[in-house]
């Protein structure tokens, strides 16, 4: 019998009631007395020198309250990068200032260089249009192509950075010579050059921010679309605006998706605060969809060459990767970590390969900043690896399932440290592969292929065996790797006098379902109904200092902090119970919501203990504080390492090149499962995004740096009809060894593991259909690309 409540139950998502009935409260839903409207003026050229901005016409227009330009912010701080990466030669990365509003130069189409605040949105828009007309920008040649950017020192995104290079990173540099040598001497080397396509996150809710300033106290409040309000507060306060942290509250109310793009602090947040202070009125800004396309941090955008050296029987000897990674025009907060420590450290995959080396050159271009997007670095690593393994199998005529089996790290090898430095704690890659093959009915493929062929379709099957590192945390590890922040999390469990519970968490839910799952865990641990638990998140004035949600960390880090706080509650409850029951503390047990004296029928309910803590008439006040509220911070000592096997089957229409996904099987190991329905949803969503990347989504700038895919007319998002009914399994569980819940992250898995499964399936279909000249097709594998590949 599946459980109907608590840990492991598919409790329905309580937040969905408000989301689905239009009762959610998003930033743009808030209307404040006296609010004014900001409109941002954005560059229409990719690269240009700002010669002059004449603000006087705009400032004199009806309703206009204030006009801001880069000049107004030139003395405040820049929005910093959160990770310091050193180049192979030991020199630190180049960090150009990222101003609130562009000053002197504009560096990408959509770069904000001015803002207008007015009584109404329409008035602000009119004045912004005027301001744009009154601005003179001298065009400079756009730097778009990464290879050209590095080759041409005369044309610079940032004048002080000669070769447009942020850093040239080697991982692990000490492996380099050995890897080169191994590849030179290997019996077989497969080489693959590929592009990991740039993606626009396209959260359903565009970014929005409201700034408030309270002159009486000097306090500021920022309501904003953020995945991590405390980090935003830290960045705005300490780095950009110089506001004392205790004078700034950041609230992220309901947030309609982020996928990474709302982790970061953006200039508009500083702008609305500065404007609110100047005008002593609330100032709001909401992005239009076009602004989202132009100015949200994009994802991926790697150009990679990967080499796989192996024995003739497919035993891996070495992997070597050279990648150019686009960071766009400025360093977004996580942008330097994404192509390095979230990518290079994963380049051993789930394999016992002895030699791995990764070189990443990160390049500035006149395009929107690029940063972590669902999966962040790990999809890039997985795609390179799983595509090159597939190509090798074809070259050597080896079975792709057997080659994976032969090379997997085996269960007896854990804990296992890879040549790229990650200590995998546990896993069972053979088990997930077997499970995926069983569900996918691999042995029945030939029959299905024949059925497709009878309809004129080419059927193919693709495999991807993926691993990732998530539950992004261990401060001691990320510190060594260059992080400038810690990555623990925190939770406060407040038992109210009447026995119900408020839990304040540092994680932030922007669709994931924390309000449901976290409540299930609390209810389970304390033996109370889920409905008695309320999860509070997203408001720095209410929650302890936490680091928000990304990197599949909510449960594995914050959820564990919450569990630890619950443990403290139980420990204190035992003390209170011991006093009330006149027993020794060691003799008190806690089970199913009851504190009982072992071996007797003497017991107190959780509610009675809570009441006693707040009405301490009969209470050990000499030795115990009243009240029942505990906070815990948790900093794990390792990442978690979910892994799995994905099998995709496609039909290719050889006449049109159209790919139809017929089935998609996921066998994942996420450790222990708290709510299967939510895990299903996370995997479905992630795979949907992965299919989007594999078949549809592409971000294209032309040679002048104009975004050609700046709307949904040309940027292809996946829709329901593009995805199959997924078959998701997570019964192969190797619980995480270092967190008490035994959980691993599941939020990014789908987006990480799926793209190579899809592309491998398409290549397989073409080969089986006789088009053996097709070695690779870059994503998105669109109908026209497939058709062109078939033409040869």
């Amino acid at each position, binding site marked *: 019998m599946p459980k109907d409540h608590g840990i492991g139950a598919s409790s329905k998502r309580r937040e969905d009631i408000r989301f689905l009935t239009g009762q959610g409260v998003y930033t743009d839903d808030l209307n404040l007395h006296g609010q004014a409207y900001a409109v941002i003026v954005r560059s229409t050229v990719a690269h240009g020198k700002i010669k002059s901005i004449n603000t006087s016409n705009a400032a004199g227009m009806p309703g206009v309250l204030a006009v801001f330009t880069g000049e107004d912010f030139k003395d405040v701080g820049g929005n910093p990068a959160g990770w310091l990466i050193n180049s192979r030669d030991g020199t630190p990365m180049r960090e150009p200032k990222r101003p609130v509003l562009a000053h002197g130069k504009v560096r990408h189409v959509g770069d904000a260089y001015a803002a207008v605040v007015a009584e109404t949105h*329409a008035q602000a828009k009119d004045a912004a249009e005027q301001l744009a007309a009154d601005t003179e920008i001298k065009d400079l040649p756009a730097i778009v192509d990464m290879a050209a950017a590095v080759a041409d020192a005369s044309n610079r995104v940032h004048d002080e950075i000669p070769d447009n290079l942020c850093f040239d990173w080697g991982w692990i540099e000490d492996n380099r010579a050995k890897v080169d040598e191994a590849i030179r001497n290997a019996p077989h080397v497969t080489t693959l050059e590929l592009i990991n396509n740039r993606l626009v996150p396209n959260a359903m809710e565009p970014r929005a921010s409201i700034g408030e300033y309270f002159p009486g106290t000097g306090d500021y409040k920022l309501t904003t679309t953020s995945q991590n309000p405390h980090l935003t507060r830290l960045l705005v306060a300490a780095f950009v605006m110089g506001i004392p942290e205790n004078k700034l509250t950041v609230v992220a109310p309901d947030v309609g998706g982020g996928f990474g793009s709302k982790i970061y602090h953006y200039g508009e947040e500083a702008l609305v605060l500065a404007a609110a202070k100047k005008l002593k009125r609330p100032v709001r800004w909401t992005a239009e969809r076009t602004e989202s396309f132009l100015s949200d941090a994009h994802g991926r955008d790697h150009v990679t060459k990967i080499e796989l050296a192996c024995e003739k029987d497919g035993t891996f000897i070495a992997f070597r990767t050279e990648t150019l990674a686009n960071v766009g025009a400025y360093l977004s907060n996580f942008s330097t970590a994404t192509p390095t420590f979230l990518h290079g450290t994963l380049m051993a995959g789930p394999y016992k390969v002895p030699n791995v080396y990764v070189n990443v050159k990160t390049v500035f271009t006149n395009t929107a900043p690029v940063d972590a997007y669902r999966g962040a670095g790990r999809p890039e690593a997985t795609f390179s690896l799983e595509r090159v393994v597939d190509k090798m199998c074809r070259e050597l005529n080896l079975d792709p399932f057997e080659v994976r089996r032969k090379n997997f790290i085996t269960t007896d090898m854990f804990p296992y440290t890879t040549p790229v430095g990650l200590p995998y704690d546990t896993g069972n890659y053979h088990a997930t592969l077997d499970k995926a093959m069983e569900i996918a009915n691999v042995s029945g493929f030939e029959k299905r292929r024949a059925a497709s062929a009878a309809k004129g379709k080419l059927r193919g099957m693709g495999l991807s065996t993926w691993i990732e590192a998530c539950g992004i945390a261990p401060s001691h590890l990320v510190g060594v790797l260059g992080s400038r922040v810690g990555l623990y999390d925190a939770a406060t469990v407040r038992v109210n006098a009447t026995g119900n519970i408020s839990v304040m968490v540092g994680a932030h839910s922007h669709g994931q379902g924390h309000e449901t799952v976290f409540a299930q865990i609390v209810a389970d641990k304390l033996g109370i109904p889920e409905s008695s638990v309320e999860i509070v998140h997203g408001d720095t004035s209410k929650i302890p200092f936490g680091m928000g949600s990304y990197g599949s960390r909510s449960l594995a880090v914050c959820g564990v902090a919450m569990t630890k706080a619950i443990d403290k509650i139980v420990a204190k409850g035992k003390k209170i119970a011991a006093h009330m029951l006149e027993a020794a503390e060691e003799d008190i047990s806690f089970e199913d919501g009851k504190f009982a004296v072992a071996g007797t029928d003497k017991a107190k309910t959780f509610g009675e203990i809570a009441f006693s803590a707040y009405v301490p008439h009969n209470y050990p006040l000499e030795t115990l504080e009243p009240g029942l509220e505990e906070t815990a911070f948790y900093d794990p000592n390792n990442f978690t390492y979910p892994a799995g096997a994905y099998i995709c089957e496609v039909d290719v229409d050889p006449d*049109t090149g159209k790919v139809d996904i017929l089935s998609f099987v996921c066998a994942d190991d996420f450790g222990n499962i708290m709510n299967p329905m939510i895990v299903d949803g996370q995997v479905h969503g992630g795979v949907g995004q992965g299919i989007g990347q594999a078949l549809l989504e592409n971000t294209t700038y032309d040679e002048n740096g104009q975004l050609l895919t700046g709307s949904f007319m*040309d940027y292809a998002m996946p829709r329901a009809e593009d995805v199959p009914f997924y078959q998701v399994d997570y019964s192969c569980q190797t619980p995480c060894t270092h967190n008490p819940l035994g959980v691993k992250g599941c939020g990014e898995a789908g987006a990480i593991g799926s793209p190579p499964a899809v592309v491998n399936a398409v290549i397989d279909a073409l080969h089986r259909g006789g088009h053996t000249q097709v070695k690779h097709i870059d994503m998105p594998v669109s109908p026209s690309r497939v058709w062109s590949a078939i033409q040869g």
Partner: protein
Amino acid sequence: MYAFDFERPKTIAEAVKALGREDAQALGGGQTLIPTLKQRLASPSVLVSLNGIKEMIGVRKEGDTLIIGGATPHAVVAKEAGAYPALAALAGAIGDPAVRNRGTIGGSVANDDPAADYPAAVLASGATVVTNARQIAADDFFQGLFTTALEAGEIITEIRFPIPGKANYQKFQQPASRFALTGVFVAKTAGGVRVAVTGASEDGVFRWTDAEQALSSNFAAGAIAGLKVSDDGMIGDLHGTPAYRAHLVKVLTGRAVSAA
């Protein structure tokens, strides 16, 4: 969006009068026009909504002709044009439910987007576009990208489709917009076969006359096997090269003939 006045006349005559105002523009379902206004790419002083004009809404059959009011939403055509199944199917595959319940046939045909679906049906059927002022044969109506025979202030009041013996529309979707990357409408009428292609040409919807000839003597997919579509003048963009579109024209024509 800039500010504008709004009128919602009840008759064609009132609409024509309202459209006489300076910088007035007709509003059908607004599925093209409203996004244009939101992006501030147009600034009419007054919008004249056509969807309060009862005589312009609905589907009716007169003999062998199906007559569709100019302000009829796609969803209504999808549901009520059963006498012309290929046309009903085409309407039912435009955009999404919201678009189909707002967008109108008159708006689509007047707009003449090179990737729109209806123009292929109008041209292949040899339909007649009826306006407040005159009747225009399909062959004279479409004049290139976003360009038609309509005069300023002239509105499409209805479109008259002779119902063909056999017909079919094959749409290959552009992956992002889901308009036609290429779409081919084939109609077999008493006077011969007509083949109209949308989405492919830089000159907008056109008739593939070589295929029409071949199919008029032998209405079978095999009849066009020996033909080749030139990629000269075909659209090349992010979603397909001219050669790809030219190739699709032939593939889709064959499929339409087989399915008709």
